[in-house]
């Protein structure tokens, strides 16, 4: 017990330093992950390309790279790494928010049916041609994710139900339902190629990253995360339930509705940009909580930065470790996340 106490005291003092530290590690990770890959590009080349593109070429440490390398870095690698950061940030913050708003340590966008909703929405656009060509796959996924998420949240009484088993079962139920719709559509209407392309998308991949969709996802996610931060006192106050929170001066209903909407929006934006990447929203907040304690004033920024760092490196691993094959990043996060989920489930069941 004594060592436990001392360990936590160290944590209190260092939490304030963790945010700048995480931010610095994220910047280094973005540069580092950008030069990892099949073509040999050094970190200085990456910096040079970025500075030149930003109109600060005179500061670049190396002479201009060949156009091919420059195009590879600027048009493919960098948007991909940044998308990984943005998606990791969005899913982690979303997970941390949902865990507090539903008062449930198992809450996570992926488990709450978002991915299956997104796939049903995507298949609706891709195979059935809903929206008559005016709607993109991402938009379909975005709408599907919001619908499934809204359905789950409505079924658990807007978060009133905090029994972990019921929340998870509700997520399973909605997931199965939307998966069944997806399968039905694919069976009846899809050809083999469409099915395969779709399965790949479903597993979550950052491979298709381009600047324009990245900008949309980044705007939604960063703005959403910043808004969540405004509710940090409410997220803390939810620790002992709605009545205690209300007695501390929190407008509980407003905070919960706004926070759930923000979580849904961030998740939908992430899933629309990258497919369904699971378990980050569970894994990252739980690890960060162990590091930095429970206050959401520091927990949310650390989750966001930590999630970004985590996904940048997982994606770098996914595209380089099994080269020339590229493994969907969702496969790796699930391989790491499923055991973590088992641990959290055991802890939650004991409470």
């Amino acid at each position, binding site marked *: *017990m004594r060592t*436990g*106490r001392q360990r*936590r*005291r160290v944590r*209190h003092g260092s939490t304030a330093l963790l945010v700048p530290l995480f931010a610095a590690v994220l910047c280094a990770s973005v540069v580092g992950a950008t030069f990892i890959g099949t073509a040999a590009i050094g970190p200085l080349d990456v910096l040079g390309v970025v500075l030149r593109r930003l109109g600060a070429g005179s500061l670049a440490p190396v002479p201009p790279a060949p156009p091919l390398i420059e195009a590879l870095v600027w048009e493919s690698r960098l948007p991909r790494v940044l998308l990984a950061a943005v998606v990791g940030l969005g899913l982690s913050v979303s997970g941390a928010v949902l*865990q*507090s708003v539903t*008062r*449930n*340590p198992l809450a996570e966008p992926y488990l709450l049916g978002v991915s299956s909703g997104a796939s049903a929405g995507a298949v609706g656009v891709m195979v059935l041609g809903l929206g008559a060509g005016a709607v993109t796959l991402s938009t379909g996924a975005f709408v599907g994710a919001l619908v499934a998420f809204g359905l789950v949240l409505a079924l658990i009484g807007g978060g009133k139900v*905090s029994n972990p088993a019921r929340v998870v079962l509700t997520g399973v139920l909605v997931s199965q339902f939307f998966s069944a719709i997806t399968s039905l559509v694919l069976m009846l209407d899809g050809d083999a190629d469409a099915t395969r392309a779709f399965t790949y998308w479903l597993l979550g991949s950052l491979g298709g990253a381009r600047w324009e969709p990245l900008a949309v996802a980044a705007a939604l996610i960063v703005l959403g995360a910043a808004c969540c931060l*405004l509710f*940090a*006192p409410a997220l*803390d*106050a*939810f*620790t*002992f*339930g709605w*009545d*205690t929170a*209300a*007695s*501390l*001066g*929190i*407008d509980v209903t407003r905070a919960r509705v706004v926070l759930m909407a923000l979580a849904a929006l961030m998740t939908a934006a992430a899933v629309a940009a990258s497919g369904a990447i699971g378990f980050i929203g569970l894994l990252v907040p739980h690890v960060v*909580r162990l590091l930095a*304690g*429970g*206050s959401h*004033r520091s927990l949310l920024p650390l989750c966001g930065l930590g999630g970004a760092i985590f996904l940048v490196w997982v994606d770098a691993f996914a595209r380089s470790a099994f080269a020339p094959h590229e493994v969907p990043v969702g496969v790796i996060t699930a391989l790491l996340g499923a055991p973590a989920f088992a641990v959290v489930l055991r802890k939650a069941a004991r*409470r």
Partner: protein
Amino acid sequence: MTSLSARDITWTAGRAPILDGVDLDARPGEVLGLLGPNGAGKTSLLRILAGLRRPGRGRVLLDGTPIGQLRRREVARRLAIVEQSPEAHTDVSVHDVVSLGRTPHRGTFSALGAEDQAAVTDALAATGLTGWEDRLWSTLSGGEQQRAQLARALAQQPEVIVLDEPTNHLDVRYQLELLALLRGSGLTVVTALHDLNLAARFCDQLVVLQQGRVAAAGSPADVVTDALVRQVYAVEAVVDLSPHTGSPAVTFLGPAHRP
């Protein structure tokens, strides 16, 4: 000094009437004990008194002002509630728990200031939790959790404090310490209690609820009688003044035959 009053409170859950025309006056700086058998409506009344539920009829006055007209945050600065064994969904330290009491006094992004820190330290000291700041909630016993919740409410620096059976999980010593602390705090206190002897000894006034109505109200000597114990709890008892404390002391004899 702040008073807390209820006027003609009526509350229905679904179709079942829980409270029916309840009046109550907690005078400034006094301890009001709320008694009654299980299911008499004590918890519902406390939640209404704290402004957490809106009564179907009647109103709650905080120092004469209807509580519904005050801003939530202002109420939170003046009135704190300690609920019965609230559960945490995540593991937090005792310091985190007690710091929650500063929520209505802090800005969204401001760190705990010197004043906040002083309030937290005082609250920890008052509840005997000094040195426990870094203990995790899940490692605390029921009684320790209850004291941490009380510390959280004290850190709120309220004028009025509402408690739902705060002595529930406490051993005899902490029961006595807690009630003495509340008495000496100068706060206006409304507390639900089960132990008639403790209530008679530490409260200035008692209100007894029975099936959602006030069965008796007044000073302990007027309220705690063998007739009342038989009527409300269906228990035969002898009540006499304790030669040691000067308060009414109840000796329970056994269940009475229900009429």
